[in-house]
């Protein structure tokens, strides 16, 4: 709850309305959740037009842990992670049934403002997508549009903190005014992480954040994720088994839109209960 209150303080008054309303409901629904759970998906179904992409999913995301969603291409991993902060809302013919509760509040209910939801649930994408402006401005972007800082000094502090958190500060502190696109791919991706962190989300969604990076940068991003786990809840989609095994606390294996197996790491890698999971882990399934 600390985090939520802190969050509310940062919000401008008129914007915090929806969250306050959510707050009242929290106590009643919270009782159904185990204390460490932040997100609970129940009977989640997602359709794009006629195609049934996610089938009756039940999954919980634990606080300050890394939950890895893995599975072969086209199994619905990205769709799943994108439903967690309503990035799919604008997708044509997107339809969702069931419930996704964040701290007990259904994020698809009418009371929740999808824009404010994204302040609490940040996202980093597969391909680094910095804005074609300076490094500083990239990080300051979120805080600026949400008016999270009162003055320049405060903004400088936010930017520095976010860059430090994303392990990029040392590399860019002397050239904050340089264009973000002058950074290497790995740096760009960490910049995108810093940009997402700057609005101080509680949950960070990472959709294959290292798949477009070289091995060195990948290792850095992985270290970073483990580091971030101290303060944030992370959900990671990845193709990379080794990466999953390195960082995961909990692993969910998704196949053809259904959740096949959920387990703690490294159990699921050592003793998969289902044949299909074993096939995937051993590389017989792609």
């Amino acid at each position: 709850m600390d985090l939520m209150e802190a969050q509310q303080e940062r919000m401008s008054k008129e914007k915090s309305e929806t969250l306050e309303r959510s707050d009242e409901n929290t106590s009643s629904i919270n009782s159904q959740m185990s204390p460490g759970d932040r997100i609970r998906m129940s009977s989640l179904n997602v359709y794009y037009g006629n195609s049934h992409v996610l089938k009756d999913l039940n999954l919980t995301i634990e606080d300050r842990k890394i939950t890895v969603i893995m599975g072969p291409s086209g199994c619905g991993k990205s769709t799943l992670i994108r439903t967690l902060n309503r990035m799919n809302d604008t997708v044509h013919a997107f339809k969702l049934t069931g419930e996704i509760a964040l701290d007990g509040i259904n994020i698809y209910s009418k009371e929740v403002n999808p824009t404010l939801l994204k302040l609490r649930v940040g996202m980093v994408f597969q391909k680094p997508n910095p804005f074609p402006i300076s490094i500083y401005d990239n990080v300051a972007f979120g805080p600026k549009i949400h008016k999270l800082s009162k003055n320049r000094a405060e903004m400088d502090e936010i930017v520095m903190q976010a860059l430090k958190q994303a392990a990029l500060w040392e590399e860019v502190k002397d050239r904050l005014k340089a264009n973000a696109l002058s950074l290497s791919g790995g740096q760009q991706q960490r910049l995108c992480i810093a940009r997402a962190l700057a609005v101080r989300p509680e949950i960070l969604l990472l959709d294959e954040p290292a798949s477009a990076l070289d091995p060195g940068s990948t290792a850095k991003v992985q270290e970073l994720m483990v580091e971030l786990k101290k303060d944030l809840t992370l959900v990671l989609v990845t193709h990379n088994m080794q990466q999953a095994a390195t960082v995961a606390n909990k692993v969910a294996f998704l196949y053809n839109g259904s959740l096949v197996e959920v387990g703690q790491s490294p159990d699921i890698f050592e003793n998969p209960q289902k044949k299909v999971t074993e096939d995937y882990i051993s590389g017989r399934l792609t």
Partner: protein
Amino acid sequence: MNQSGKHSLRVGRISHSPTLLCIVAITKFIEWERFSLAGKEPSAENNAVVPAPQFSARTSKLGDRIFRVLTLGAAFFVVALLVLLVYELIKGSDLTLAKFGVGFFSSKTWDPVTQIFGALPFIWGTLYTSVIALIIGVPISLGVAIFLSEIISRTSRIGELLSSIVGLLAAVPSVVFGLWGLFVLSPFVRDYFEVPLHVHLGAFPLFKGEPFGLDFLTAGIILAIMIIPTVSTISMEVLRAVPRSQREAMISLGGTRWETIRHSVLPYARSGLFGAIILGLGRAVGETMAVTMVIGNDPSLSTSLFHPGYTLASVIANEFTEATYPLYVSALVEIGLTLFILALIINIFARLLIWRITKSSRVRT
């Protein structure tokens, strides 16, 4: 006989120099193409290995060669056409060039009776009406483009209908716009905009003078309408080309739709949008018929929106049939040359600006 022989010799000599130019151009083109095919910039090393540019070995198949020659010919033809056109423009205006020199561009007198010709009022009229057209037309065009590319779904019926209507606007012949401007728009603008503005704000130089309806403002409005299809269609394509990842970055930061458009889509697309606007300006500068019909055709340097004016294009269209002596014809051809130079300057300026924008915003892609 002697005369004609001299003439043909002259033509021969002149056409020789464009030929040379074109050969140089082709050589350069081949050189450039070879290197870009190999994915490399011409470097000292490459030059050392291949001393003289030549057709590379792997295009030795006959079909390839024919295709190459045909396309090269087409490209070359356009270059040659332009060179010849400029040459003709300069040759055609030799009388006024000799008589008035550079003063032609800065003189404000255009008097066929006393045989004094200056292009300044027409340059002014062209720029003035074009700027009015941009001020009115660009916001509307961008609005249309943003609506079509960002607000409504690409597949929706309304979107398709609207974009085809915008396309239809481009298909309306210029003279039809002129007629409509003359009989409908001009009185309307005079009664509902110009008269009230003149009555209340007549003290400003912009609104000075008795409004007649056939003036810079009406011409500018007609031009604005005529550039909307160009600017909005191209802007829409430019906006649609903005990568989804840029929008998603903004949305994932909790940006609203408007914030996404304003901070993410528009900045990313700005060099393309600028290009669209310049194409619109190009159209406005060269537009002839509709403007001629509503601008009042009076060579003036007035800053008042309500003063009749004249543009480069419309003076050519209007007075070519009246040009009864060689100096007059020469003056009109030089007006054409001026129009060409003006378009060239706008293009160069635009390219420089786009280049600067691109350089500052896309260091690495």
